[in-house]
């Protein structure tokens, strides 16, 4: 699993003896389900340097650029790509595709 490999690599680079937690940004459009990720994390960590660590997930809402309002707008629903203010269709996604390890708690 890429998250575990990435975190192991980063921990090794920083000379960590133990990883306590991995902080992840997860966009609602990333195509990954938070609960599935949490439940598989423990399994993926087994037998690695990350065994026993926590996965802390920060969910990122979908932020689009509205061409009519000329500004960023946060979508309430991923079933309707329209500006929540003026209802214009929006296609430019600014945030919400993130699947990024942002920080780690290490010892």
């Amino acid at each position: 699993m890429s998250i575990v490999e990435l975190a192991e690599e980063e921990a090794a680079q920083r000379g960590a003896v133990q990883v306590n937690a991995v902080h992840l940004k997860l966009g609602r459009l990333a195509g990954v389900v938070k609960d599935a990720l949490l439940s598989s994390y423990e399994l993926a960590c087994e037998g690695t340097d990350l065994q026993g660590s926590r996965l802390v997930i920060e969910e990122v809402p979908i932020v689009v650029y509205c061409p009519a309002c000329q500004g960023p707008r946060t979508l309430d629903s991923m079933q309707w790509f329209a500006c929540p203010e003026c209802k214009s269709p929006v296609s430019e996604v600014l945030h919400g595709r993130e699947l990024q390890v942002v920080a780690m708690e290490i010892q």
Partner: protein
Amino acid sequence: MTRLVEVRQNVLKQNDVIARELRQRFHDAGTFAVSLVSSPGSGKTAFLEKTLALMRPDYRVAALVGDLATENDAARLARAQVPVKQITTGTLCHLEAAMVRNALDNWDTGPLDFLFIENVGNLVCPSSYDLGEDLRLVLLSVTEGEDKPLKYPTIFNTADLAVLTKMDLAEAVEFDAAQADENIQKVRPGMTVLKVSSKKGAGMDDWLQFLASAREKRSAVTAGAATIPGRSNPV
């Protein structure tokens, strides 16, 4: 003592790097790469089989086919008498850029105008993996229901074109094409929606024309700009 360190690394960065290399490679070779995603059984293979057979007289085409376990799809596509290669993913529910690269590295197809990449039947995981394609096509068969785009908005949102398949069955299953189109437009405003019947051949002309003009448009842009806005990671 525990310390908090900043990392900021994309989890799929390795895939994105390989996908960028592939996109450049396709562009340099004059090959237009098209990936196909859909749920299992929506007619990807039949659609591709028809497409390859229709294109073969005019274009150099080849297909890579992802499947969990069997090589049945590759055997079917090979009937079109074009180069076909199977990528068996085992337990993996999607294709990754490295699999495409590995498949291409050991495959002598000669120069290609179009390369088709049929992903594993799945509407969830393939949406996260850029394969270096120029065009991502999502198929939706009339038997699946009009609300599929709302149930799987991510895959529809990352696609460049939607194709409604099995239109010859539309009446029998009381498929509401206008409703399906409305739902697609909700999750991906402005996306072109084509209607086809791979079996009867209806709508295939529009599809081939779409492909030809998409390839021409791609050739017109510079190599550096050959990215797909829908898929680039903004992080």
